[in-house]
């Protein structure tokens, strides 16, 4: 429900970080963990709405990657994927140590006539 402000913040951050190259951004990739409470459809819709407000963004591709929840099992000393929010390892041990799934970050930016840049912002 707060996706419009998130999308605005993403592009504000990029403008501040790359003032000279901002106009040359062709693609922005956002990673959103399943625990981040982000709905990718709402991010996409918010971006389409932002384009209407700021038409210069129409040439930018915005991709949202959903990251599964990964937790760590102390008994097995292994990471496991949490499915349907059941934080229980195959061995039966519950775990609350989250390794992945809470992220909400800009993970990749591509610029016109430039190499892509992997970042975590």
């Amino acid at each position: 429900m707060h996706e419009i402000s998130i999308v605005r913040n993403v592009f504000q951050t990029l403008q501040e970080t790359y003032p000279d190259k901002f106009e040359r951004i062709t693609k922005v990739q956002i990673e959103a963990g399943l625990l981040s409470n982000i709905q990718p459809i709402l991010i996409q819709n918010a971006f389409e709405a932002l384009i209407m407000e700021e038409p210069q963004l129409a040439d930018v591709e915005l991709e949202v990657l959903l990251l599964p929840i990964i937790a760590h099992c102390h008994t097995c000393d292994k990471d496991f994927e949490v499915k349907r929010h059941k934080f229980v390892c195959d061995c039966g041990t519950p775990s609350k140590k989250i390794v992945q799934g809470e992220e909400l970050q800009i993970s990749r930016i591509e610029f016109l006539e430039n190499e892509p840049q992997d970042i975590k912002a």
Partner: protein
Amino acid sequence: MATELSMLTEPIVVTQALAGEQELGGRTVDYFEIEWYEASRSKMRKKTQGGVEVLVDKAHREPLEDGDLLYLSEDLAILLKIKPCECVVLYPSSLQEVGTICFEIGNKHVPIFMNDAQEVCVAYDAPLYQLLLSGGFVMEIEERVLHPAQMVKAYGNLARKK
């Protein structure tokens, strides 16, 4: 031909779906796969299952639909495929229950889909599932393809009938 196309440095540019009901004949059929929430994206660049690079660059906001024909040449047809996803599938027993379900889900601004089997579907989300569970609704978690044309709009009509 698909192999040759996959070696191109420039992608195939798609500005809109081609007219439906075209005879594919003996062409190789390749699929451009997207997630359900990407159907409205105006711009996206991906490889097809066969490795052909495609750039969707729509001038309009009409969503793409599962099965849309994106490209057609003498040898190759590229069709859009929406990946199935885990959904909460609800089986309302009355129109009033449909309204209650849509109200609960709508409060979270999450799109609701009603398919031809009169199922109410929403992409799986654990907190939402728990909320609906506490409401005593009959539901299952199952894989479904969420078609943009079956998305329920706030004013109660379906988005686009094919």
